[in-house]
């Protein structure tokens, strides 16, 4: 089984009432190249998200990839603060670089359009790779 690392990417979160000094959120992110059955490609950021049931991406990516969401199979998905998101799915080739590439049955949902990055979840990613999380070095060195 291949071994690889996802460096944590730090995001500064603005101060709020419970966190007056703000917060730093560290997320295990990588650059991925997506290729659809149309042959069209898109490079984007992805977060390795063990809490996601499957691999999902912003619905805006579908049009760039030449996919017609209206003709794709759909089901409803939910996340924190949102539910009943219509998610259209199809096979998608995902290349993380350095030989790490796979095809997953991935979804496209408007629920992720506000963030603009994808999530690599349990079905399609974590069921193929052993992934260890070790955030502490990112906090020390970033």
């Amino acid at each position: 089984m291949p071994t690889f690392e996802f460096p944590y990417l730090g995001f500064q979160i603005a101060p709020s009432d419970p966190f007056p000094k703000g917060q730093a959120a560290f997320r295990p992110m990588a650059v991925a190249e997506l290729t659809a059955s149309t042959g069209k490609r898109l490079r984007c950021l992805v977060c390795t998200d063990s809490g996601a049931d499957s691999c999902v991406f912003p619905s805006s990516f579908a049009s760039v990839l030449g996919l017609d969401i209206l003709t794709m199979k759909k089901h409803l998905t939910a996340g924190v603060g949102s539910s009943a998101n219509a998610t259209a799915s199809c096979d998608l080739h995902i290349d993380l670089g350095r030989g790490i590439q796979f095809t997953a049955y991935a979804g496209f949902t408007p629920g992720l359009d506000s963030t603009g990055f994808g999530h690599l979840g349990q079905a399609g990613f974590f069921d193929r790779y052993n992934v260890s999380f070790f955030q502490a070095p990112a906090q020390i060195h970033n």
Partner: protein
Amino acid sequence: MATPAIHYSSLLKDLHAGAWVAISEKTMSVIAYSAEIQTVVERSRQQGETDPLIVRVPELAGTLFL
């Protein structure tokens, strides 16, 4: 090691929240930005960048993502 996602915050800090952005990974610079993702992709191609990294300026920059 997988392709690293370096810290892009400095490239995005002066752009409008919610904008789609095309970044050249070769020059580490913003090629195009727009409210529409297709516009960003088309403008990148017009400038000779066929494989830009597409990101979005967070609409909720002050929100912890869960």
